[in-house]
């Protein structure tokens, strides 16, 4: 079967029936609870196949998702899905040309993998924990612990930048190294405190100077209260040094990062 699926270059649409935007795969047993949710361009529907169901909504064939509203809608639908039950989130932008294609190319062809994933994820949600340093807190801590660097930095104060350029760079380099080490230790220490509450942890790149930790936790729903409390306690204890950002419950995006047909073109 060779349905003319489009690639990401966005070839122009041929006049045909609407496409289907795919949000998530859920157990077919949960399908009944879906009605009336607004998707990207219309109401969310369920396409079932055996034990699996896909959450979809109709999309005009010539529409290419990518506006802020589209992302918001994607997130809204997935947020609702994880509230209701076990959810495998699709990456943003999965569009298939018909319900038949959703059944055949997603739910049938990848049924075993998806079913196994649903079993593994049963009763679990993703929680994001980020730790941001208070302004200059990391630097302050590093300077407190490294008197020699602090002394050299102090000696530079008030001197013309041009004359001291080399020493400034050298001091800056020493600071940067100490900062990196400190950040790595802080990250490890924070993770050690969080791991006991999670079934699995993914650490994402910090993504900024101020970020001490950017972690994704896979957490059993019934353990959430314990984690909530631990985060509260840590936040209170670390106030003034790092602020914690705690986001969720999210569908397990980070634990389903999977390209089902990585190099395939069309068959």
């Amino acid at each position, binding site marked *: 079967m060779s349905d003319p699926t*489009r690639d*990401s270059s966005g070839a122009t649409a041929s006049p045909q029936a609407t496409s289907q935007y795919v949000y998530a*795969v859920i157990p077919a047993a949960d399908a009944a609870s879906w009605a009336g949710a607004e998707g990207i361009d219309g109401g969310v529907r369920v396409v079932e196949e055996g034990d699996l169901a896909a959450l979809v909504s109709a999309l005009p064939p010539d529409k*290419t*998702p*990518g506006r802020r509203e589209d*992302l918001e809608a994607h*997130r809204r639908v*997935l947020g609702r899905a994880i509230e209701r039950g076990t959810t*495998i*989130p699709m*990456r*943003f932008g*999965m569009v298939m040309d018909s319900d038949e294609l959703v059944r055949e*190319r997603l739910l049938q062809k*990848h049924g075993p993998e998806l079913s196994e994933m649903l079993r593994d994820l049963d009763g679990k949600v*993703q929680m*994001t924990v980020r730790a*941001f340093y*208070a*302004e200059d*807190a990391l630097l*302050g*801590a590093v*300077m*407190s*612990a*490294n*008197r020699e*660097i*602090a002394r050299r*930095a*102090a000696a*530079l*104060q008030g001197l013309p930048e041009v004359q001291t350029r080399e020493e*400034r*760079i050298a001091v*800056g380099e020493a*600071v940067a190294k100490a900062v990196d080490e400190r950040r790595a230790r802080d990250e490890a*220490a924070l993770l050690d405190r969080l791991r006991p509450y999670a079934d699995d942890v993914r650490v994402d790149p*910090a*993504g*900024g100077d*101020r970020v001490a930790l950017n972690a994704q936790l896979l957490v059993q729903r019934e353990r959430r209260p314990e984690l909530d409390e631990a985060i509260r306690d840590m*936040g209170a*204890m*670390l106030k*003034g*040094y790092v602020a914690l950002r*705690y*986001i969720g419950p*999210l*569908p397990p995006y*980070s634990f389903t*990062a999977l*390209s*089902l*047909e*990585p190099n395939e073109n*069309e068959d």
Partner: protein
Amino acid sequence: MAISTPSSGPSGGALTEVLELILDRGVVIDVFVRVSLVGIEILTIDARVVVASVDTYLRYAEAVGRINLDNKKAGVPELMEGRKTEKAIENATDKLGELFGGIFGQPAKDAVQVEPGKEER
């Protein structure tokens, strides 16, 4: 939007805070991806601004001078609650010591204060 230590459980998060997860994680079949990048690029830039970073060696050196001299300067308003004075940093460092059982060694209390004599400018 201020980011504060959670006191009453988690939040849903701003779109920019979950953008990377939505765009880069989850299950995908590449051949069925249809995405317009124009809108997304703008959002991605927004997301990066959330954790804006500037970290050349020279900027570190500059910042070292700043915390010694301009303790009272207002903090980056949208990222962090509260003001970061030298004292706050010391206190927090102590708290970190408590929390992590002194793995990090004891900070020297006076080390942040550097040569008060040079503070004019």
